[in-house]
C-alpha cells in the first residue's frame, strides 16, 4: 500500500488532488482512499489531505502518520515539520519555482521534486490570482514523480470532469517537474512520526487559561479592512462651512449643547440659519435617494434655540481690528477674531446692528428677537459696536491707520433697477427698502393690488409682507420658470400656499398711469410673455421675448426685487474686490473685503463662511500662524485613509436603512399667516429627526462592523475602532455591512 500526505491551505484543492491520485489508481483496478483532515473550513487555513492505494482492499481507517510520500501545495508551508513520519527515501514534492537541490539539505533522507505549480495554474487561469488552484498541475507532477504514465493522470482528470486548462496544466507540470531522485543521505533513518498527544487540554472552568485563538488567521488574508473617511455632501456644500454631519450626530445623541458648540465653531448664527438658510445641504442630502432629505435647517434651528454654550475668548491679544458693516459676514469675522482674543470694533452705517438680518428678512421668517439673541452672544465676547457710522474713502484710511487690520463687510448695497418708461417714486419701490419700512412698521398696503417683480427671496418676502399688510391682491412676476427661481423652494411653496399668484415667463415692459379712483393712484403694467432659450453665463436658460404676447396688469403698487450688487465706491478706482486680497495696497495694515462685497454669494450662509475664512486669514497675517483656511468643515481624520472626496448616494448602502418620514415641524395655519407677522414655522419638538442622518462616509459608531465581525476582532477605541489584523483573515463582512463606506477592503 502506498500512503501519500498532502499539505496545503483551504481552497487550494488538496482533497481533490488526493482524489485525483486515488482515481488514477482506481481506474487501474486498485483499492483506494482519499480524504481530508477538516477543521475550520476556511479559505487559507493549513489543511491536510490523504491518499492511499493498494492492490489489496484497504482496511486502514486512520490518518496517515508515516507517509510514503508528501506533497506540499503551498510554498509558505515548506518546513522540516511537514516531513514528520515521512519514510526514508520517500518523495517530497514541493510547489516551488526553486530547483529541488535547494531543498535537499532540508530533507536529506528523501527524494525531492519541485514544480512551479502556482505559475502554471496562473498561466492557465486556474483559481484566482491570490488563490491559484494548483492541484491539477501537481497531479501531473505526481505522475512523473511516481512513474504513473501521463495518460493515467489525464484519464483520472477526465473521469472527474476536469477539462481544458486543467489538462494543459497537468501535462505541463508532468514535463516541467524537476527531480532529485537520490537522497543526499542514504544512511538508514527512522523518521519518527509525531507522538499522539496524551496531555490534558484546557479546563473550561479556568477562564485564565482560555487564551486567544492559537491560529493567527491574519496570515491567510489576501485583503484587509481599513477605515476611511469621506466628505459628507452636506459638509461639502455648506457655504458657512458647518460640520453638518457632526452636529446632527450630537443631536441624534440628544446632546443639544454639544451640537450648538459644534455649530459655533464655524457660525455664530445657527438660529438665524436654521430659519433663513436656503440649505443647499438638504438639496445634496444622500437620503433623498431613500425617502427625503434630513431636515437640517430645522435641526440647526433646534440646536441654536435650545443649546446652551458659554463661550469666552481663549486668550487676550493687543491687536485692534476694525470691521465695517454689521451684517452676517462682519459679525462672523468679529466672532472668530474675538474668540481668539483680538480687540474688535464693528462700525455700522445704520441705527441697528445686524444688517440685512434685521431689515431684509421679515419677522414671519426670522423674528427680531432671534437675531438679537445671536448678536448678543457675539457682543458678549467683548466686541464693540458703533452705529450710524458711515464710511467713506477718507474714514476708511483713518480706520486703517488706527487699527492693526480692517475688514470691509458692506455687502451688496447697489440695487438693480428696471426701466419701465415711467419712473414714479410713489409707484415703484425697491424690495429691500420696502422690507426695511415693513420692519420699522412704517407702511401698510390696505386694499391695494400689489405686483412684485423678481424671483429671489426678497421678492417672496416682499410679496408675503404685502399680503400681511392688507393687500387686496399680490402677484409675483418672474421672467423665467420656477426651476430658475433663486428663492428657497420651500418659501416659494409657502408663497403660493398663502394665495399669492406667480406669473412665470413674464417680463414687465412698461408702466402707465391710469385714472385714479379718488383714493389711491392706479397703474397699468404692460408685460410680455417669455420663452426659455439657451443657457446664459449663470447656467440658467435665458428668457426670450415672445412676439405679440403683451398683456396688462392693473395695480396700485410695484415692488422691484431684482437683486443687488456691491457698492465699491469707498475703494480707489480699479480695486479688485475679492476675498483674501489686500485692498489698499499702499498701506501696511491688512484691509480685506469679506462677505457679499467680496463673494457676491448673496446668502447668509455664504457671508458666514466668508467671515470665518477672512478671520482666519487676518489671524494668520497678524500672528504669523499657519491655520489652514478650509472651505468646508473638517471632520476628524483619525482614519487609515482620508479621502478628500464627497461620498455620493451610490457609495452608500441605502438598502440597510429603514424608510422614515421627514419631520417637517408644525406651521401656523394659513388663515393666521395672512394677517400676522408671527413666525410661520414653529420648529421641531425634539431631535428625533437628527437620527435620520445617514452619516455619509463618516463613522457614527453604529457598530454594525463590531456586531458582524465573525472573529470578534474589531475593538472600539474611543470614538474609533481598531482591527486586530493578526486574526483578520480578510473575509470582508465588516466592509459589506458598513452602511456608510467607512470600511473598505485593501488588497494586500
Amino acid at each position, binding site marked *: 500500500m502506498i500512503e501519500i500526505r498532502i499539505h496545503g491551505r483551504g481552497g487550494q484543492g488538496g482533497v481533490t488532488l*488526493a*482524489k485525483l491520485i*486515488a*482515481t488514477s489508481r*482506481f481506474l487501474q483496478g486498485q*483499492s*483506494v*482512499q*482519499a*480524504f*481530508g*483532515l*477538516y*477543521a475550520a*473550513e476556511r479559505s487559507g487555513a493549513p489543511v491536510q489531505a490523504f491518499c492511499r492505494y493498494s492492490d489489496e482492499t*484497504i*482496511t*486502514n*481507517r*486512520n*490518518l496517515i*502518520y508515516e507517509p510514503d510520500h508528501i506533497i506540499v501545495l503551498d510554498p509558505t508551508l515548506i518546513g522540516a515539520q511537514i516531513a514528520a513520519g515521512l519514510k526514508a527515501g520517500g518523495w517530497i514534492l514541493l510547489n516551488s519555482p526553486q530547483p529541488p537541490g535547494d531543498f535537499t539539505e532540508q530533507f536529506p533522507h528523501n527524494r525531492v521534486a519541485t514544480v512551479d505549480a502556482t505559475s502554471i495554474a496562473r498561466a492557465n487561469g486556474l483559481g484566482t490570482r491570490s488563490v491559484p488552484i494548483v492541484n491539477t498541475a501537481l497531479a501531473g507532477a505526481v505522475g512523473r514523480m511516481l512513474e504513473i504514465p501521463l495518460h493515467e493522470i489525464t484519464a483520472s482528470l477526465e473521469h472527474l470532469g476536469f477539462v481544458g486548462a486543467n489538462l494543459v496544466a497537468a501535462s505541463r507540470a508532468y514535463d516541467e517537474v524537476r527531480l532529485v531522485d537520490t537522497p543526499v543521505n542514504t544512511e538508514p533513518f527512522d523518521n519518527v512520526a509525531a507522538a*499522539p498527544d*496524551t*496531555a*490534558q487540554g484546557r*479546563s*473550561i*472552568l*479556568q477562564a485564565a487559561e482560555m487564551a486567544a485563538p492559537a491560529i493567527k488567521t491574519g496570515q491567510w488574508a489576501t485583503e484587509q479592512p481599513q477605515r476611511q473617511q469621506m466628505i459628507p455632501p452636506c459638509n461639502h456644500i455648506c457655504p458657512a462651512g458647518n460640520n453638518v454631519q457632526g452636529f446632527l450626530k450630537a443631536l441624534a445623541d440628544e446632546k443639544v449643547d454639544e451640537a450648538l458648540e459644534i455649530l459655533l465653531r464655524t457660525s455664530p448664527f445657527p438660529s438665524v440659519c436654521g430659519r433663513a438658510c436656503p440649505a443647499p445641504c438638504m438639496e445634496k442630502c444622500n437620503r433623498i435617494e431613500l425617502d427625503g432629505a434630513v431636515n437640517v435647517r430645522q435641526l440647526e434651528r433646534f440646536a441654536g434655540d435650545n443649546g446652551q454654550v458659554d463661550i469666552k475668548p481663549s486668550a487676550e491679544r493687543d491687536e485692534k481690528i476694525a470691521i465695517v458693516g454689521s451684517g452676517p459676514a462682519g459679525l462672523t469675522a468679529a466672532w472668530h477674531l474675538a474668540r481668539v482674543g483680538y480687540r474688535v470694533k464693528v462700525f455700522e452705517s445704520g441705527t441697528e446692528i445686524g444688517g440685512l438680518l434685521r431689515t431684509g428678512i421679515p419677522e414671519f421668517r426670522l423674528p427680531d428677537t432671534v437675531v438679537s439673541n445671536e448678536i448678543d452672544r457675539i457682543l458678549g465676547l467683548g466686541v464693540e459696536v458703533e452705529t450710524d457710522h458711515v464710511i467713506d474713502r477718507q474714514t476708511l484710511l483713518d480706520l486703517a491707520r488706527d487699527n492693526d487690520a480692517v475688514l470691509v463687510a458692506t455687502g451688496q448695497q447697489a440695487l438693480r433697477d428696471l426701466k419701465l418708461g415711467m419712473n414714479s417714486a410713489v409707484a415703484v419701490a425697491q424690495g429691500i427698502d420696502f422690507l426695511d419700512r415693513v420692519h420699522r412698521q412704517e407702511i401698510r398696503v390696505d386694499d391695494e393690488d400689489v405686483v412684485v417683480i423678481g424671483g429671489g427671496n426678497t421678492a417672496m418676502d416682499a410679496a408675503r409682507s404685502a399680503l400681511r399688510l392688507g393687500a387686496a391682491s399680490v402677484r409675483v412676476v418672474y421672467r423665467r420658470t420656477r426651476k430658475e427661481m433663486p428663492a428657497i423652494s420651500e418659501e416659494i411653496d409657502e408663497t403660493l400656499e398663502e394665495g399669492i399668484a406667480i406669473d412665470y415667463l413674464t417680463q414687465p415692459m412698461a408702466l402707465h398711469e391710469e385714472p385714479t379712483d379718488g383714493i389711491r393712484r392706479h397703474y397699468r403694467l404692460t408685460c410680455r410673455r417669455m420663452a426659455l432659450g439657451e443657457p446664459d453665463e449663470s447656467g440658467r436658460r435665458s428668457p426670450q421675448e415672445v412676439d405679440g404676447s403683451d398683456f396688462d396688469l392693473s395695480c396700485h403698487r410695484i415692488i422691484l426685487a431684482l437683486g443687488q450688487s456691491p457698492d465699491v465706491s469707498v475703494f480707489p478706482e480699479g480695486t479688485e474686490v475679492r476675498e483674501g486680497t489686500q485692498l489698499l495696497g499702499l498701506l501696511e495694515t491688512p484691509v480685506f473685503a469679506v462677505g457679499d462685497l467680496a463673494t457676491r454669494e448673496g446668502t447668509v450662509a455664504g457671508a458666514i463662511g466668508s467671515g470665518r475664512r477672512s478671520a482666519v486669514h487676518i489671524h494668520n497675517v497678524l500672528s504669523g500662524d499657519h491655520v489652514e483656511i478650509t472651505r468646508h468643515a473638517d471632520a476628524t481624520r483619525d482614519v487609515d485613509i482620508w479621502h478628500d472626496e464627497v461620498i455620493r448616494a451610490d457609495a452608500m448602502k441605502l438598502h440597510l436603512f429603514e424608510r422614515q418620514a421627514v419631520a417637517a415641524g408644525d406651521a401656523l395655519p394659513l388663515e393666521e399667516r395672512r394677517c400676522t407677522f408671527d413666525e410661520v414655522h414653529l420648529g421641531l419638538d425634539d431631535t428625533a429627526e437628527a437620527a435620520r442622518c445617514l452619516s455619509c462616509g463618516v463613522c457614527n459608531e453604529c457598530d454594525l462592523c463590531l456586531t458582524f465581525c465573525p472573529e470578534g476582532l474589531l475593538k472600539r477605541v474611543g470614538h474609533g475602532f481598531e482591527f486586530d489584523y493578526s486574526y483578520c483573515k480578510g473575509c470582508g463582512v465588516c466592509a459589506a455591512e458598513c452602511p456608510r463606506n467607512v470600511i473598505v477592503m485593501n488588497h494586500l
Partner: protein
Amino acid sequence: MTVQVVTGNHAAGYALSAAGEANRTARGAACGIYPITPQTEIVEYVARFPFSKARIVPVESEHSAMAVSIGASLAGARAFTASSSNGLAYMTENVMVAGYYRLPIVMVAVNRTLGPPWNIWADQGDTLMLRDFAWLQFYCESNQEVLDTTLLAFRLAEDRRILLPVLTCMDAFIVSHTQTETTLPEQALVDSYLPDLQLPHRLRYDEARTIGGMVWPHEDLSQRLEIDEAMKRVPDVYQECRQSFRDVFGRDPGDVIQTDGTDDADTVLVATGTMATTAREVVRKRRAAGEKIGLIKIKMFRPFPAAAIREACGSARRVAVLDRNYAAGSGGVFWQDTRAAFQGHRNDVLIQNYLTGLCGEDVTPSVIDQILADLASREVAGDPVWMGIETGKETLQ
C-alpha cells in the same frame, strides 16, 4: 451496478434518493432536511437528485426537518432525512414522535461530537442519545455498508410486522468524507428490492381521523407493548430482508452482529463503526500469531442483540467493550448494554469498558494493542478506562 470512488455521504445520499425514487409508482418520496457539518453533502445530493415524484423541503431547522418527514410519511410518502450532532439534539422531540407514530422513516446520521466546545469529529454520543425512542439503530463501518444498510432500512422499517423508523449511522469524516470505491446499484435493482410503501395507518383526505391524541393510560400501554413486540420481531425480519438483499444485489449487507474468530477465543473485543475495522485487522494479525482472540462488531444497537452477543462470546472470559461515546456519570453505552446482556446468564466473564475515539480521537492499531494489554493484566473489571489521555490529575477540586 457501477463502482465509483465516492464519499460515505454520497453513498448515503444515493441510497436515500434511490429508495425514495423506488416509491414513485405509489405515493412518492418526501424529505425535510437541514444541513449541518458533516452531513451537508447528503443534503446537497438529495436536493440534486432527479426524482420523478418527490418533494425535498428545505426547512429552517432539524426539528422542522423531522416534522416534514413525519407529515409526509403519514400521508403515505416514503420519507427520509439526515442530520448530525447538535442538529439531532434539536430534532429530538420529533424523533420520538416518529417512533411512537410507528412511521417507517429512515434517517442517516453522521456521528459527530455534541458541543460545546465545538467539535466536528466522530463521536457516537449524538445518536445514542436517541436510543430509547422506538427507532432501530444501525452503526456502519464503510461506505458500502452505509449504502446497503440504508436500503435495507427502508425494507425493514416498512415491513408490516415492524413499522418503526430506522437510523443508519456512520462516523464523521472517517466514513462521511472518505472517498473510496463503492458499488452504487442501479435504480431497477432498488425498485425490485423495495416494494411500494403501504402504510396501514395512512391519513387520507376523505377519512378525517386524528393520530396521537389524548388517551387513557391503558390505551397508551397497549401501544408501548405493540412497539416492544415489533422490536422483538426485528431479528427475524432482519434476516429476511438481508436474504432478499443478497438475492437482489448479490451482496451481503451484514448480520446484526459480525464476528471474527470468536469460536475459540478466550478474549473478545466488542466494537462498532470504523473502530471495528481497525480492531478486526489487529485481531486477524494476532490470530495469525496464534492468539485466541476474537471480535464482535455490533451493527444493530436497537433492538439490542443481547442473546446473539452472549452466544458469540462463547467460552471467552475476557471481554473489552470499546465505546466511542461517554454517558456522563456511567460509562460507554455499548458497555452498559453488553454487560446487562450477561447478567443472570453468565457471571464468569470479565467485561471491561474502554472509552476510546471520543471527541474524534483517532483509534489506531496501537490503541487496540494497549487495550488488549490492559485487559490481559486485569483480575477483575474496573471503572471505564479512558484511552489516550492521562487521568487522575484533577486540576480543579
